């Protein structure tokens, strides 16, 4: 009797909990497989064939070898790392600085906080229009400013000089994406018990010591996640760079995603090479992410 009722109990439990689990899990899994798994598998499959969309022929890792040994690969990898690191670090620094300022409850802090969301909401196309206009050598405000204050002798063609194209793209990217770090860090800052700072002051800690010993530990997890997520996004970023410079001049801003696009859609299409390069990017990011999690443990949060 009791065994039966236990069994019935288990069945009932199965019915309710498992059904709920299945009802939520199955559609998501299907969606994930169809929208992510299949295309990824298909693309990785394509990377093993030469001319996969035409006279497909199994080529094993020839595409990978071709991409890796191409002259452009090292340049594009270097550009990608430079772009991802600098735009991530700068937007983190900018976001942290502004979050610290707004968190001080200064006059206009609320207005600043509201304004911070706008760059993130603006379409990338608009952002690039704005920045190409601002940085334009003939009519741009930035060049006007530099000339007026005698910082340069003649206007700089930011987006079309090999020296300035990458910094210009990074500045535009930081302007657009800096608010991401800002909002996450501001939320974390506002969750810190203000009494901790007061206690630290009474205990004799300077502002810097309080920042180092209270603020930084509380922000550590958020900062590590921002670096990881923003870093991956920036490494894969295509639109903002392509719209600004098309990867030029002279490949100065050609990152790996732009190289993938160039391989796939420019000149003679090379889908095998493009998908192989995409696979390489995926593995690079995966390796970095695994090491990152292992070394920094960003999931370790300050327990409140």
């Amino acid at each position: 009797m009791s065994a039966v009722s236990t069994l019935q109990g288990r069945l009932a439990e199965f019915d309710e909990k498992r059904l709920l689990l299945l009802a939520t899990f199955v559609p998501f899994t299907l969606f994930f497989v169809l929208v992510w798994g299949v295309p990824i598998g298909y693309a990785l499959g394509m990377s093993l064939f030469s001319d996969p969309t035409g006279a497909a022929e199994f080529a094993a890792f020839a595409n990978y070898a071709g991409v890796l040994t191409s002259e452009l690969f090292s340049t594009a990898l270097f550009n990608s790392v430079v772009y991802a690191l600098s735009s991530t670090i700068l937007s983190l620094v900018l976001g942290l600085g502004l979050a610290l300022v707004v968190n001080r409850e200064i006059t206009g802090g609320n207005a600043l906080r509201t304004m911070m969301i706008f760059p993130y909401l603006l379409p990338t196309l608009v952002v690039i229009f704005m920045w190409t206009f601002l940085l334009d050598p003939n009519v741009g405000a930035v060049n006007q400013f530099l000339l007026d204050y005698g910082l340069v002798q003649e206007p700089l063609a930011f987006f079309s000089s090999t020296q300035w194209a990458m910094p210009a793209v990074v500045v535009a990217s930081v302007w657009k994406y800096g608010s991401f770090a800002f909002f996450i860090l501001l939320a974390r800052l506002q969750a810190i018990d203000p009494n901790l700072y007061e206690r630290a002051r009474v205990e004799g800690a300077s502002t810097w010591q309080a920042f180092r010993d209270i603020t930084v530990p509380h922000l550590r997890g958020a900062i590590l996640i921002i670096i990881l997520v923003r870093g991956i996004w920036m490494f894969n970023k295509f639109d903002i760079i392509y719209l600004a410079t098309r990867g030029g001049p002279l490949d100065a801003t050609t990152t790996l995603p732009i190289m993938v696009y160039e391989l796939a859609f420019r000149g003679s299409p090379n889908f095998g090479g493009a998908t192989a390069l995409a696979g390489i990017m995926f593995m690079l990011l995966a390796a970095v992410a695994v090491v990152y999690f292992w070394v920094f443990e960003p999931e370790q949060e300050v327990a409140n």
Partner: protein
Amino acid sequence: MARPIRLDTVCKEYHTAGTTHVAVDDLSLEIPEGSFTTIVGPSGCGKTTTLRMIAGLETPTSGTIHFGDRDVTEVRPQDRNAAMVFQSIALYPHMTVRENIAYGLKVAGVPKAERDAAVDEAAETLQITEQLDKMPAELSGGQQQRVALGSAFVQDPDVLLLDEPMSDLDAKLKAELRVEVQRLHKEMDATMVYVTHDQTEAMTMSDHVLLLEEGRLAQFAPPGDLFDRPVSQYVAEFIGTPSTNTLPATVEAADDGPTIVGEQFEIPAPEDRFADRIGDSVTVGIRPQYLSPDEGDHRIRVIVNVVEQLGTEFVVHGTSVNGAHVNVVDESVDGAGPDDELSVGFEAADAFVFDEHGETICHGDALVAARSASPSQ
């Protein structure tokens, strides 16, 4: 080195949206060095603001604060050699208990070996040696409070400030920590200022009690004085549980001098203080503990509402004939129950008399001393 704390005409105002809120109003007093002083009062009376000004976390709008001879009014909290325990306890959640206790020493540049020795000593005193390697989140409320006390202890401050440190603890832990805090005070060479809204804590722990009323000083005196010689009706009613009974009365001229006449009692009053008050209405205050069914020259009748038994004594909550709320605390109440009428009496020596503004006219001893008291009933 403990230091006296002197507040001189300290005011603190807050301005919000065009209105000015006076949190502390013209507060002047001297807290003796090495003493244990409690600031007590109802919510919003300015006690925490006063403490925060002593800590340096707030700057007075006007007035000065001295630690000994040193004017600290504008001195940063970092440079006052004070320690503070917060109501929220405020342990650094990402540091172990040991790091929490040692933090003040660490920022002061004390070498690690010395820090560890100080922490070990404090932990032993506070019985938290076992907890030193844990994180604050792993501790119970009482243990967290001990850690906060420990971190104040190791800093060897001149002034130790505690802001309602026990308000979130249960009664048993409170009683335990009360003893702990007093023991720490004996071991430390520091002037202690303790903020609480719990007058029992204030009365049991301190050398001096500062009672505030809406930012102003109501009375600053040893606890016994607050109980026996309140300067106003507010003090008499705030200190002591249950609250002091207040009975309306008038001063009338009798053949043998002024007499305080209430609903059912007549108390002969001293000539010097009452002669010019004939016809005034006054309030007679009498503590529930001094009302007794069996004794007392002056009697009042009380309709019993509720009787509570608290171990060896009973608390009667009742209403006097004229509707005033009257509490009686006694060892026996003759089996009185709800709706019974109880006759209770008091001695003039135990009464207080307040004028219509709530200021004390005289305490019971003056009532007795001035003229030989004679039963008036």
